[in-house]
């Protein structure tokens, strides 16, 4: 199945891309598994030094599926738009 992945703000800049169509083979795919698969922790300052935590979804990062907040372990389905959101600072 194919998932449209979007990154914003500091996450987008760190990864060097903002939007990507990702093909997923193994099931079940979740935001957490895609974060690992895409190595989105690479370049992050925190957590990279500790074994086993290098690819964990960091605490401050929130997930949206089809433009609504969702839990990191929500099963994804084909065609979903998945976004990883760094800490919000509006208003």
């Amino acid at each position, binding site marked *: 199945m194919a998932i449209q992945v*979007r990154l*914003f*703000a*500091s996450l987008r*800049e760190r990864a060097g891309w903002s939007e990507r169509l990702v093909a997923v083979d193994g099931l079940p795919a979740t935001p957490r598994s895609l974060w690992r698969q895409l190595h989105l922790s690479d370049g992050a300052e925190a957590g990279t030094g500790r074994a086993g935590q290098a690819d964990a979804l960091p605490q*401050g990062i929130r997930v*949206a599926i089809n*433009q*609504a907040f969702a839990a990191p372990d929500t099963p994804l389905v084909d065609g979903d738009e998945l*976004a990883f*959101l*760094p*800490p*919000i*600072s*509006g*208003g």
Partner: protein
Amino acid sequence: MTTPCTIELLAQPFEPLQALAAWQRQLRCGCEGPGTDRGDASRVEQACLPPAEAHFIGRVRATTASGAPLEALELEHYPGMTERQLVQLAEGCLQRHGVAAALVVHRVGRILPGEAIVLVAVAADRRGPAQRCGQELLEALKHEAPFWKREWSGGVGGWVEGNTAW
């Protein structure tokens, strides 16, 4: 009838008092019934504005969080989700407080010091719900609507993580 929640994301500077005037005209329009007497129209319109109205205007500071002179603020958002979230937050807030109408205007893109970045207005039957709903909606959008601020200072941009304390 007007919608109780009005949400606007603007890429250009706006004048908060003009936005409030437009919103008030909209609130008045929702009250004009077909039976309105011509001669009494202006008074009927006036009487239709709810008894209590609370506003908040936020403007861009002249300095960064660390105190350096700020050149500009850059505001990124998630087109589609941001609007959707703002509508949901406003509608939830209106229902919880039993409030008549709410307006949220929020800038996106590049914003200069002194420019308005956010306007929240609430119209209600009583002052308590108007003030409480306005405060709650402002806090909600600061923490629950996908916006990200980047401060530009000395040609360098730094992302702001989190909000200032209430």
